[in-house]
């Protein structure tokens, strides 16, 4: 029964929840079930606290990474004590008058914001690794990502033609020096293609062309985001939905039991 109990509970509650979706008058039962889930998760917090405190208390006892664990324990009990004190004093630790909020605003929020801001550096380092044109796929990713990034910044209509010109100059250098494998190293061909690319780089600066190219960036960015990107994303959503339903059925009918004993 220890094994079957949770599986039967899951099966019954999930079938009831699915049925409730189709029965408009049973909204009350649905709300009641949701409330039960909230109450259970509230009690589950005790399991978390128990795990956290015991884990670090044992480490302090063993003399293993004492500084980290002791800091956590002191911070934990200090926060709880401060909250209780404000609760007794004012009635709520989250009241605007509560000094507990000082702790939240001046310790927790800056720490959280610091971690979030570190993300900018990680994005730069991940982008450096991802945006290397190692093959055709990563080259396309580089090109499309660059266009979208330019299209989302201020003065994109000025930056885009300049970036396009720089790209054409780099392409000309590559066509002249690095693309021998592409067309057998024939000098006339290399010269022609590199020349076309260079002319393109210069022509971009002709005022009317500059304006037209610059103006096209917004439409191009929207198109990339709304058509190819959205198509792939919707395909993934479709797969996710059906994969999710199949996974739910596996759990509902006890085929998938990894989550329980």
């Amino acid at each position: 029964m220890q094994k079957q109990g949770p599986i039967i509970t899951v099966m019954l509650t999930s079938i009831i929840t699915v049925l409730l979706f189709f029965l408009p008058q049973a909204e009350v039962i649905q709300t009641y079930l949701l409330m039960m889930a909230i109450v259970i998760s509230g009690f589950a917090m005790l399991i978390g606290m128990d795990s956290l405190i015991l884990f670090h208390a044992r480490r302090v006892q063993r003399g293993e990474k004492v500084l980290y664990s002791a800091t956590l324990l002191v911070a934990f009990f200090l926060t709880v004590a401060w909250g209780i004190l404000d609760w007794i004093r004012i009635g709520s630790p989250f009241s605007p008058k509560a000094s507990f909020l000082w702790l939240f605003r001046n310790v927790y929020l800056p720490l959280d914001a610091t971690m979030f801001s570190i993300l900018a550096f990680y994005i730069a380092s991940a982008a450096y690794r991802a945006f290397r044109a190692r093959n055709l796929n990563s080259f396309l990713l580089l090109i499309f990502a660059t266009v979208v990034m330019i299209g989302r910044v201020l003065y994109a209509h000025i930056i885009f033609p300049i970036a396009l010109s720089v790209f054409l100059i780099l392409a000309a250098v590559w066509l002249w020096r690095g693309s021998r494998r592409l067309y057998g190293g024939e000098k006339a061909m290399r010269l022609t293609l590199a020349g076309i690319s260079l002319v393109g780089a210069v022509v971009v600066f002709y005022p009317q062309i500059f304006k037209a190219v610059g103006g096209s960036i917004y439409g191009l960015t929207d198109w990339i985001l709304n058509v190819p990107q959205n198509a792939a994303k919707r395909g993934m959503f479709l797969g996710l939905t059906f994969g999710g339903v199949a996974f739910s059925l596996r759990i509902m009918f006890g085929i998938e039991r990894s989550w329980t004993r």
Partner: protein
Amino acid sequence: MFLLAYIGIAKVSVDTLGGNNVIVWSYSEVKVDSVKVFRSDSVHPKESPMLLGVLGAGDTALVDTLGGKAEYLLRTFVGADSSDTDWIGVGRTVEVSPKPKEESPPSRPKTEKAEVRKGGVIAFFDTRKTNILVAILLFTVIFFYLLERARRDPNVFIRRIAGLDVVDDAVGRSAEMGKPIMFTTGIGTIDNLAILAGITVLKQVAKRAALYEVPVLVPNNDPLVLAASREAVKEAYVEMGRPDLYKENDVFFLTTSQFGFASGMSGMMNRIKPGAVFFMGYFYAESLILAENAYVSGAISVAGTVAIDQLPFFIAACDYTILADELYAASAYISRNPLEVAGVKSGDWFKALSLAVILVGIILATLSQINPDFKWMYDAYSSIFAATGR
């Protein structure tokens, strides 16, 4: 600009932005509990409009990604009372006068409650959700059919998933290096399917870890997930005949704070230098922080999430990435249990079926554009699949 007889809302405007229709509104002095936004177009007439969403009193905008030519109606709820605005087309801005509720416009759409009051079958069952019920029943039939087939013939084919083939290599590498494995299901509660899928993968990884005698460290963000993770790891060790290797403290609670969790886990990765790190579950902005720290710590990193917005970060920073719904198939793929694999296949079958439905829709939509005589056919077809009962 014109006036509407209504209470609760002061101004509504509908604009187009990047192919989407954006509905923006502001409130009058009357305090509103919630707002429902309805859409009406060629597929959804005003008598049975599509409910776009139920929003809280603080919300003042909604983006309709369906876009196109449509009209919108806002219904506000104040206590037990509700009232509607007029239908507002795209590109219109409407100011609302604070008139009494009795003067509400007649163009009120049918609601769940309105239908319920009619009695009979409608009162018991929301008929607008019939198409969803049929789809679920069809899915369940396919699911049980494939299950039965797998019972008779356990050789069920599933295509190769590179990210899951490396699980053995990653565990083996950790064993050779004498380093532990780290596994996280990310941020979220136990009701998140991705986290449940992550726990099923955790069990398979823990089984292999028990075989190679490699410790598995599992920091958790939610206490209920912690309890389920502990059960999964413990059961894996028992199944492999090594309950002596299981240490309860290896599966532990870290914090419910998103960046606190990222900070704690990153610190651990840098101090412990694990042989392999698995990110299988649901992740938000902390995904890249975790993945980059796994890279810096020199571990093999394998990630899998259904959070599509976080997938590019994992692809960029991790060694192997399991894409979207592959995560739901992961446990079945690793365990090779025929019944579980059959369950995965039911999703694939339904996917193929829906592709056929979409293909027919594309053909009918194209035909209706070329020749308007086919429009009724397209309208009838799309109305079958319209989600009117959300």
